[in-house]
């Protein structure tokens, strides 16, 4: 049972408070959606959690271990995986090699100077790609993939490190509707199967309300609502600031 406890996280840029006192808890089995209008501070929140940005104050504890102040690669080593809003893969490598890199890194074998990298961990990499439906494209260069496919490679890369916590920044952005639902269904399945704790941001409300176990609503850097999808949907504050005209 893993528990990521976020307490009173704050971060300003210049005079603008991007994240102002965010607290929540993420546990194994959660598929927690973080939603909010553009500029609400979702991506900043993610960057604070995985160490890319340092918060001005607040704490992030993973099973009691303080993560604030650690570089991204240390936080990753503790079991916090991440996918990016703007896709970031190793474009000069094949799809399989991208996943193999993560497996090599996990096994601390990156400093090898002798055995070819392409032959190491290939089978487990193919198995992971099969899980996200990318096995058929395993030997294509990552740089030529369609956007939605890159997102799936990212998911395979994140899974390769066997994380206990997974942060997914807009995992389905740029995907066709059918693809979106498939990817969210896969994520939900992984949560159940592996007991993952997933925090994701998403603009697509079908994805959010169809799969999330809980929903956090962020507005101008502050959490304004938290609860089950139904509770959040019914919350008048959410309707006014976020759903706006739809309410």
């Amino acid at each position, binding site marked *: 049972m893993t528990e990521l406890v976020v307490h009173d996280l704050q971060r300003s840029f210049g005079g603008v408070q991007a994240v102002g006192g965010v607290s929540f808890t993420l546990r194994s089995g959660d598929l927690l959606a973080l939603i909010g209008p553009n500029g609400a501070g979702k991506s900043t929140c993610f960057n604070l959690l*995985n160490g*890319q940005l340092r918060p001005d104050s607040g704490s992030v504890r993973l099973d009691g271990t303080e993560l604030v102040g650690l*570089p*991204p*690669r240390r936080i*990753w*080593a503790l079991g916090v995986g*991440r996918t*990016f809003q703007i896709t*970031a*893969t*190793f*474009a*000069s*490598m*094949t799809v399989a*090699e991208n996943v193999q*890199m*993560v497996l*090599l*890194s*996990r096994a601390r*074998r*990156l*400093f*090898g*100077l*002798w*055995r*070819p*990298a*392409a032959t*190491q961990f290939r089978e487990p990499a193919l198995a992971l790609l099969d899980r996200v439906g990318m096995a058929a494209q395993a030997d294509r*260069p990552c*740089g030529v993939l369609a956007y939605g496919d890159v997102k799936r490679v990212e998911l395979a*890369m994140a899974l390769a*490190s066997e994380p206990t916590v997974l942060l997914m920044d807009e995992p389905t952005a740029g995907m066709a509707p059918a693809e979106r639902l498939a990817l969210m269904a896969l994520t939900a399945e992984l949560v159940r199967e592996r007991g993952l704790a997933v925090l994701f941001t998403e603009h697509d409300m079908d994805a959010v309300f169809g799969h999330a176990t809980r929903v956090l609503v962020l507005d101008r850097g502050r959490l304004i609502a938290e609860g089950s999808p139904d509770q959040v949907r019914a919350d008048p504050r959410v309707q006014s600031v976020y759903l706006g005209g739809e309410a």
Partner: protein
Amino acid sequence: MSFLLVQALSGLATAATLFLVSSGLTIVFGVTRIVNFAHGSFYMVGAYAGWSLIERFGGTPAGFWGSVAAAALAMGVLGAAMEIGLLRRLYRSPELFQLLGTFGVVLVVQDLTAWAWGPEDLLGRRASGLKGSIDILDQPFPLYDLVLIGLGPLVLGLLWLLFNRTRWGTLVRAATQDREMTSALGVDPARLFTGVLFLGCALAGLGGALQVPREAVTLQMDVAIVVEAFVVVVVGGMGSLTGAFLASLLIGQLQAFGILVFPQITLVIVFLFMAVVLVLRPHGLLGRAEEMPPTAPATVTVPLSRGRHAGVWALALLAVMAAAPLVAGDYALILLTEVVILALFAASLHLLIGLGGLVSFGHAAWFGLGAYGSALLVKHMDAPMPLALAGAPVLAGLGALVAGWFCVRRSGLYFAMLTLAFAQIVWSIAFQWYAVTGGDNGILGVWPSAWAAGKAAYYWLTLALCGGALWLLRRAAFAPFGYALRAGRDSGLRAESVGIDVRRFQWMAFVLAGAAAGLAGGLYAFAKGSVFPTLLAVPQSVDALVMVLMGGIQTVAGPLAGAAVFHLLESEVMSMTDWWRLVLGLIIVALVLVFPKGIVGFLSGLRSSFGRRRA
């Protein structure tokens, strides 16, 4: 006390010249994002042109100042011509091409200047009306230097007015901040850029012409000043005028007082100062983070081609080369030995550029350090050849270990500048530390042991050592280490978020490349029997870059072909002419103009246009 004051004043006079030159460099960089290596050439030609004009018209104060102004304007016109003929085609190229292309101009200008004014140093006449000196606290101080000291702030003020009070200046500032937006607003960027090059090069020419009464005009002043101007611009913050002024003042004083304390290593002090500033304030004293140049990918992002049956081909090539002494004469064997050595040198640089995306502009430092390491072991410790050869990669690797710690902290252009700075440090030590390195005279009598003294024997030795090293480099490139290096280049963000310590891999690669280059250098020293500071100088670094570029970045075998082609060209074609700099410069310029997006970009462009035609 009065002595210190005079020293400080002469530091200010140096600072004024430095500021004139570096302000031009920083303005040009701010708008075009090109680091113009040829900036020092305009300074040098400005000095030569100024010298000729002053000889003729400099008898009166009006004649003197008129001559200075005319020289500056002429350099402005030449700068504008360079923008139209060359730079305009390079704005979207990787920074490696921009640096190389403008360095090609440096070479061409050097030979043309020597052709026009001859190789002798020229001493100009003193400035009319300012020949005397005045006493400052009983110490004489040249009147002309006082005028120069006043000129620095004056030019800064005029530039401030130009950029803040005129429409043209406002447009230039706008273009500095956002090029696309400015052109979207209907400003013709081409004309703006030509104007900026005019201004920048005129300032360089002004700085050069103003030096005529102070020091001899020589053919070496171009690279010397441009490297100093790089330091000023980097320390001040790239693109910042006030930063350049501040940095000029600091470096002027550092030189004036450094020469009192450490007369042997003034150059080292300046470069160390820059390295320290960059580590403490990564964007320079007054630079802002967003002024970081948008680094065009220096390398391609296609998979490194593994090549079918590469092992078979490599063995076949090795067999053919090993058999060469059976048919080749002594001269051919010497040439082949050098080709093999340079292939290792180029391949070691390719490790940084091709895999790490790290464009080193000072790779000669490690080649030269290896050569000097071997030579010093032989000279001062009577070491036998095997020991001296083993010392070469060790010394070079240690040097790269120290320098690499600084260099990998920055990427893109700053990395290039830092590697250049460290190469200059090593060069200046070899050049200035006469007692140990023999300075300019180099170290002679570095000959192989008796068993390897024959041309064929030494060739085989070289082939075995370089072949082995190349094989190791290739293994490393395809091993997880090489992949991790590429991962950091492709996406640093992703690499860090899957546990890859990008800097550490870059640092390791730097050391590995340094050691490999060092081994090549050690072998080179014994092949030649001597070492000279030129082995560590900028042109040697550029040679390596050209070899890598010629061979193409996309394959591990590329640098080998590049080294062979380049060296044969150099020894067979360029030795037939006295104007080899001109020829090499033109080749470099042609190379970057024909392949502005890199050789692979060129090939894939060909392929896609070919595909379109067929479709």
